[in-house]
C-alpha cells in the first residue's frame, strides 16, 4: 500500500482520473481487492498484469459497465460517482473493451454511434428515443472516424460488423472510443488481433491521444509496445496493486517479475 502511494507520489503529474480502494466481487471471486489507480492528462498509463489479474474488471468499473462494491472516484480531485455507462461517458471516459462489445447484426456506422445516435433536428415534440435517426450524419461521422484511424481495408461503413475480420472489428471499436470526444480513453488489449502495420497505427493513435492532452490507459501483454508508448506502468496482481513505476525507472524484466511474483517474493528471492 505505502509502496504504491510512494511510487505514485512525488514524480507523478496531478491525476485527471483517480480511483482509490476499489473493491469488486463476483460471487465468491474477489476480483479487485482495494485497487488504487490514476491517470493524468497528457500521459499514457499502462496497466499490466497476468491473466485474471483484474485489469479488465478495473476498466469496466471505470467505464461504468460494472459498479464497484466499494471505492471512490475523483475527476480532477473532485469526488464523482460512476454507477452506469452513462455516468462514465458524461465524465468523458471512453473505452475499447477487450471483447470489443460490437453488435454483429448492425452495420459499422450504427455500431460507431450506438447509444449516442445523431437525431434529425426539428422533432423536439417527440420524446428523444422516438425522434428520427439522422442516418446520413451517422455515416458521415463513421467515415470520418474510420478515415482518422486510416483503416484502409474497410470498404463501406454500411457493411455489417458480422462480416468483418477480427482486425477490422478492433479498428471499429477503437474508432468508437477515439471518435467520441472524451478526456479519458482506455484501451483494453487493443492490438490483440492486429497485424504489425495495424498495431503500429494503434500505437500512433495512442501517442496522438496523449499529444492532444487526453488521459490514456493502455492494457497490453506486449512489453515492447508498452515500453514504447507508456509514461507510467501500473502492475496489478491477484486483484491488488503491486507497484506503479515511471517507465524510465524500470526494466521489462522487473515488470514481468512483478506481474508474476509480486514484489515481496522478489525481495525474498534477493535476500
Amino acid at each position: 500500500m505505502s509502496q504504491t502511494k510512494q511510487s505514485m507520489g512525488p514524480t507523478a503529474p496531478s491525476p485527471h482520473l483517480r480511483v482509490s480502494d476499489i473493491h469488486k466481487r463476483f460471487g465468491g471471486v474477489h476480483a479487485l481487492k482495494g485497487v488504487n489507480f490514476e491517470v493524468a492528462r497528457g500521459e499514457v498509463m499502462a496497466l499490466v498484469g497476468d491473466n485474471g489479474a483484474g485489469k479488465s474488471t478495473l476498466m469496466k468499473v471505470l467505464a461504468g459497465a460494472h459498479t464497484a462494491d466499494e471505492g471512490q472516484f475523483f475527476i480532477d480531485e473532485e469526488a464523482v460517482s460512476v454507477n452506469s455507462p452513462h455516468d462514465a461517458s458524461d465524465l468523458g471516459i471512453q473505452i475499447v473493451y477487450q471483447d470489443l462489445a460490437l453488435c454483429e447484426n448492425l452495420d459499422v456506422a450504427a455500431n460507431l454511434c450506438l447509444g449516442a445516435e445523431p437525431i434529425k433536428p426539428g422533432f423536439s415534440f417527440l420524446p428523444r428515443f422516438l425522434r428520427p435517426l439522422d442516418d446520413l450524419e451517422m455515416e458521415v461521422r463513421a467515415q470520418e472516424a474510420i478515415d482518422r484511424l486510416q483503416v484502409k481495408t474497410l470498404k463501406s461503413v454500411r457493411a455489417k460488423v458480422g462480416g468483418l475480420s477480427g482486425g477490422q472489428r478492433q479498428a471499429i471499436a477503437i474508432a468508437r472510443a477515439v471518435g467520441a470526444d472524451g478526456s479519458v480513453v482506455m484501451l483494453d488489449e487493443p492490438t490483440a488481433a492486429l497485424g504489425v502495420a495495424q498495431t503500429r497505427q494503434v500505437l500512433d493513435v495512442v501517442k496522438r491521444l496523449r499529444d492532444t492532452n487526453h488521459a490514456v490507459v493502455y492494457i497490453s501483454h506486449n512489453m515492447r509496445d508498452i515500453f514504447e508508448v507508456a509514461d507510467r506502468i501500473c502492475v496489478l496482481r491477484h486483484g491488488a496493486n503491486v507497484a506503479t513505476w515511471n517507465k524510465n525507472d524500470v526494466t521489462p524484466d522487473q515488470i514481468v517479475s512483478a506481474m508474476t511474483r509480486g514484489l515481496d517474493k522478489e525481495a525474498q528471492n534477493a535476500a
Partner: protein
Amino acid sequence: MQPENKVSLVGRLQAMRETRFGAFVPVLLALAAIWIYFGLAVPLWEYWGDPDAQSMRFIFLSPRNIYNLFMQSAVIATLAVGITVVLLLGEIDLSAAATAGVCAALLGVLVLMGVPAPFACLIVMALGIVIGAAQGILVAYVGIPSFVVTLAGLLGFQGVMQKILPTGNLNVGDPFVRAFARVLLPDALGWALGILCVLYFAWTVLRKQSQRSARGLELDSPAATWGQIAFFGALVLATVATLNSYRSVPMLIVLLMVITALVGWVTTSTPYGRAIFSVGGNPESARRVGIDVKRIRVSAFAIVGLMAAIGGIFGASRFGSVSYTAFAGGSLLLESIGAAVIGGTSLFGGRGSVWNAILGALVIGSLGNGLDLSGAGAADKLMFSGAILLLAVAIDAVSRSGTTER
C-alpha cells in the same frame, strides 16, 4: 473439402440477406411458388383432367378470393407484427393469440354491457399493453426465460378466455366494432391513397439518394433505387386494383398498413428501434453503451400485447363474433409466429422486419386458403404449414452469418 458451388450458394444467400431488399427475396419466392401452384398449376391440372370443362377456372387468383385472403391474413399479420418486435430481441411470445382472445372476449362483453365501443376498444388495448408489460417484467426483471413466461401466459389466458366466455362464443354486432372490417374505401379514394403512398415512397428514396450524393456518401446503384420504387409501386397498385375489382380497399387493410408502417418506422428509424436491434444482437454491448436493456425488453412485450389486443379487435370485427377456437384455442398463435419467421425474422434476435411479417402472413394465409379451395383436410394443412415453417427456419439458420465457415 466442400464443393465450391455449395459454398458460394450459402455465401450468396448470406450476402443477399444482409441487403435491405434481399431479406424480402425468400418470402417473396415462397409466396410466388404458392400462388403459382394454387393459382395456375391446380386450375391447369383440373382443366386437363376434366374433359367436360369449358374453360379454366382461376378460383385462387380471382379478385374475390384475393380479397378474402387479405382479410383472413389480417389478424395473423397484426399479431405477427407484434411478435416480430420481440423476436428482434431474441425473445418469443407464445401468449399473443391467447392475449388477443382475452382482449376480444372482454371487448365483446363490454359492448354487450353497453360500454361505448370506441371506449371499450381503448380499454381492451390498455389491457393488452398491461398483459404484455407484465410478462415483460417477469422476463426482464425476474429473469425467467420468455418461453416459460409466455407459455404460462398461454395456458393462463386460455383459461381466462373460457371464464369470460363460458359458452365459448359471443356475437359482436356493435356497428363501430364491425366497421373496421365492413367499411370499404370508395374506389377512387383507394386509388388516391395507393398512388400517394407510392409517390411518397419514391420521393423519400430519391431525396435520400440526392442527400447522399450531396454529402459525398456512397450511392445505391440507380438500378437498386428504381427497382425499389418499381417493386413497391407494383405491389401497392396491384393490390389496390385487385381489391377494387372485387369490392374496394377495406378499412381493415388500410389500418393494418398504417400500424405496420408506424411499428416499422419505430423499429428501424429511431434510437428506440436501434436499441431493440442492438439488444437482440448483443445485449451486453447494448448494456455497456448505456441502453437500459430491461426497459427495452418490457416495452417490446408491451408492444406485442398492444398488437395482440388490436388483433383481437380486428378479429372480432371480421368474424362478427368472438370464439375460443378463433383465438386462444386455435392455430392463430402458431400461424402468427410462423408468419414472422417465414418473413425472415430470425429466432436468434437482431434481424428481421415487420414488413416481412406481413408477407409471411400472406404466405401462411395463402397456403391455408389454397388448401381449403382444393379440398384438402385439416391434416394436410397442418403438414404443409409445418414443412413451410421448417424451410423458413432452415433458410434463417443457413443464412445467419457467422454460423458457417467463411
